[in-house]
């Protein structure tokens, strides 16, 4: 029983005895670290939001370390990745997506220039050794992630140089060779990685031999064989398959003659070819693709799968693109093609999820051509892989890349369901994790699935308007075969771009919850952040009004049902 004070006064702050937490009837606030859309979209598994947060704190090295915890090759991916992260970026709906790939590239270049050490410890001398076939992006990523898992990696590469498709299939205008060499050299120099060059599977080593000698085998041979291509059985005698043509060009620097070229396909190889041939002198280069061009109404699954800026640059350079079309017939003069008949078509997705292409009769038209180049994909070269290959690919059972053979994993393009460097890098990481789990006998690693936060969950009013940094691009007239077309973003712009990150789904430490709680039920903790935030909900006093969640700019605070 309280003893009355004279005149009924009270001492300061005594309302703390009255716990208003029991006023909450339905929901309570909670920190929910949902995945930012960039992270969710990243095939390599980068958390761009996380490394942008470190950049916002003026810690480029920390940002790079965070980045390379998923992707060891940012200087490369920053140049070649079609960056689905930018497509997914929630800022796209405001003033344009963040220039994520530019900053990624800048970070990668900074790391090379500054000699920042990869955040991996050398594995134990007697650590299990994983055999990795192929020193392309998948294999290199796998080797790197083996180190991160405490394993050693021994790479077997058939060619005299590491790099795989990075070296053989991407022109220097997109990926300068010095950049490629520098980043690969740093990675391959990591203690615990052994690289065997000119070691071809089926010739110098065998799958069974590797299985016997190593704790696990990761197969990342890539796709080396062009698919057969014909139009209703017709195959021109002077047919050049796209990837092979590109490789050849990069080796010898010349294309077959032809003024009017039609490229058939919808990937980066097709795009590279179009642009290189145009620059090499072809008067008219046309890309015929079944996909659609990017646009507000284009379904993501229908969108042409190329680096968006490459598409823009190609259009600048005068490449003609015929979307939603296919080659219906080849018009031959003898064994040579003189024209192609194009027909419009669309992809329709049926109820079973399979898509079907339907061509529209009456839309046929003819293009006169000198050269037709199919770029419709490649297959795994079966040499040494006869035991595991299925329908031209190594078709693994799951995202970890497990093949039916114990301890054998498939990564990268050889899986048949991949197509980008970033996907290959993601494959390498996952396979290394799965291999490590298998070696440790702990089964498959857990899938860290976080829900993705949509733009609608943000409160955008708190973000000051800020336009995307435009990076200098080589003028069309100056574009050749060596000089990189897209320029460097530079430190200041990279930091400015980082400041544009909305921090979707994660704590921005913006103080809004702390500022707006009418009940002082949000406590700021400078040094005690456990869940990545700097705030704790004092549920003794929180009345559950939901203001903090409503005003949280990043959607990091959500009202969840009261737990009893």
């Amino acid at each position, binding site marked *: 029983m309280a003893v009355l004070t*004279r005149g*009924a*006064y*009270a001492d*300061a702050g005594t309302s703390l005895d009255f716990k208003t937490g029991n006023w909450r009837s339905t929901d309570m606030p909670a920190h929910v670290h949902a995945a930012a859309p960039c992270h969710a979209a990243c095939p390599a598994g980068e958390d761009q939001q996380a490394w942008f947060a470190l950049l916002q704190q003026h810690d480029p090295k920390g940002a790079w370390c965070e980045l390379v915890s998923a992707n060891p090759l940012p200087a490369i991916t920053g140049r070649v990745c079609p960056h689905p992260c930018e497509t997914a970026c929630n800022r796209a709906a405001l003033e344009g997506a963040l220039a994520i790939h530019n900053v990624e590239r800048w970070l990668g270049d900074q790391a090379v220039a500054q000699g920042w050490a990869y955040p991996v410890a050398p594995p134990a001398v007697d650590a299990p050794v994983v055999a990795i076939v192929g020193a392309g992006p998948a294999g290199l990523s796998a080797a790197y992630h083996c180190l991160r898992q405490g394993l050693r990696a021994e790479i077997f590469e058939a060619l005299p140089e590491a790099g795989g498709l990075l070296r053989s299939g991407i022109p220097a205008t997109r990926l300068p060779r010095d950049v490629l060499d520098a980043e690969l050299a740093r990675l391959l120099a990591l203690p615990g990685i052994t690289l065997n060059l000119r070691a071809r599977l089926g010739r110098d080593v065998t799958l069974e031999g590797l299985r016997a000698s190593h704790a696990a085998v990761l197969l990342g041979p890539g796709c080396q064989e062009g698919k057969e291509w014909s139009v209703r059985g017709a195959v021109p005698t002077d047919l050049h398959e796209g990837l092979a043509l590109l490789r050849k060009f990069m080796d010898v620097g010349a294309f077959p003659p032809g003024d009017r070229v039609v490229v058939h396909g919808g990937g980066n190889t097709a795009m590279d070819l179009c642009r290189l041939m145009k620059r090499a002198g072809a008067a008219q280069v046309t890309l015929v693709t079944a996909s659609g061009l990017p646009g507000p109404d284009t379904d993501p699954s229908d969108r042409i799968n190329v680096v968006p800026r490459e598409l823009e640059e190609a259009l600048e350079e005068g490449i003609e693109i015929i979307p939603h079309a296919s080659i219906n017939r080849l018009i031959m003069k003898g064994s040579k093609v003189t024209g192609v008949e194009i027909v419009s078509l669309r992809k329709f997705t049926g109820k079973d999820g399979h898509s079907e292409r339907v061509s529209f009769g009456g839309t046929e038209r003819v293009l006169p051509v000198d050269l037709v180049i199919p770029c419709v994909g490649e297959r795994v070269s079966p040499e040494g892989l006869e035991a595991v290959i299925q329908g031209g690919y190594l078709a693994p059972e799951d995202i970890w890349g497990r093949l039916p053979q114990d301890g054998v994993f498939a990564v990268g393009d050889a899986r048949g369901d991949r197509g980008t460097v970033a996907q290959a890098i993601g494959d390498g990481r996952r396979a290394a994790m799965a291999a490590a789990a298998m070696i440790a006998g702990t089964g498959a690693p857990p899938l860290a699935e976080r829900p993705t936060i949509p733009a609608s969950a943000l409160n955008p009013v708190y973000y000051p308007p800020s336009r995307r940094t435009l990076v200098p691009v080589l003028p069309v007239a100056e574009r050749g075969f060596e000089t990189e077309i897209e320029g460097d973003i530079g430190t200041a712009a990279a930091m400015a771009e980082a400041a544009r990150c909305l921090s979707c789904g994660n704590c921005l430490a913006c103080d809004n919850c702390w500022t707006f709680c009418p009940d002082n039920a949000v406590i700021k903790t400078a040094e005690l952040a456990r869940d990545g935030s700097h705030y704790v909900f004092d549920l003794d006093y929180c009345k559950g009004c939901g203001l903090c969640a409503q005003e949280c700019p990043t959607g990091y605070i959500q009202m969840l049902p009261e737990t009893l």
Partner: protein
Amino acid sequence: MREAIEGSLAIARAVAMCRPDVVAAYPITPQTHIVENLSRLVAEGQMHTEFVSVESEFSAASVVLGAAATGARAYTATASQGVLLMAEVLFNIAGLRIPLVMTVANRAVSAPLSIWNDHGDSMAVRDSGWIQIHCADNQEAVDTTIQAFRIAQETELPVMVCMDGFVLTHTMEIIDMPSQADVDGWLPPFEFDRRLDPANPKSFGMLVTPEYFAEIRHAHHAAMARALPVIEAADRDWAALTGRATGGLLAVEGDPEADVAIIAMGSTVGTLRAGMAADAGRAGPARLLNLRAFRPFPAEALRAALAGVKHLIVIDRAISPGLGGIVGAEVAAALYDMPDRPRLHNHALGLGGRDIPETIYADLLAAIKDLDAPGFSVFDADLAKLAPEDR
């Protein structure tokens, strides 16, 4: 030092001697001369106080409330409508147990408008929880004002010093004014622990639920009871210093053996005193009770003073329509348990400034012989002035 001095000026000078930190007041007849004189003392640099010239009595009371709550000695004065406009604040001040001193220059309450003296104003706030002390003359008013600051401080109750408007406030008479040194030595500096203090922040004026409200009111009532000896002690100490007693709670004069007694408050006491002297025994002797403390009501002292009295005349300077005399009713209640309690003759007199002549003494005494007289009357009302249906 004895001086011929106007009542209001004397009060202003007495207040100044008590060195209030804050004075706030709004002018109203007949309190005006007090605040004018205080203003002049401030303007002349003879008084160092924050004089807040407010825009209403409501704010005057609120300002001194705030000032006292902040640990300042504070003072205000008002009358009549001003008391009623303050009413809400007065209850609040008392409920907060804030020590303050206020002079009420008693005046009738409108309507009809009357600027003249009676006790209708302070009676209207008798239940506000303030100590109310009435003064029979200006000497009493000066001495009581100084005592009031000490009483307020010791009891943590606000004190209302009531003096009849015009009759005292505007009258020059001879007053023995205390010296500043006397007051400085007698009145302790203002200290109030329950104050707004950044070093020890507290919250005042809170919401109190039914579980505690009754206790708060009981405590207030008990504090009033404890104030009775404080008032007496203040007067004793003051008398020891100055040789002048004000009479404390209740002063008894006249014939101590008389079986007739008259109770009055304020300046009426002087006229009755003069009337008794002039009567020279023709109407008979009486005990004359100068009832000074109306709140707290000195029931015990009253009963002691009335031992052996057969007829008690109680004079009211206000009326509670529907009941009659207020002092009369309260005296009756106080005497209810008294064995051989006297017969009560309750009269309202001098309402709205009606002159109370010297002959009132004889007239009142004569009236007790009328066995059929009502227990209460407006003694000096001439009903012939009323339409028959309004009588």
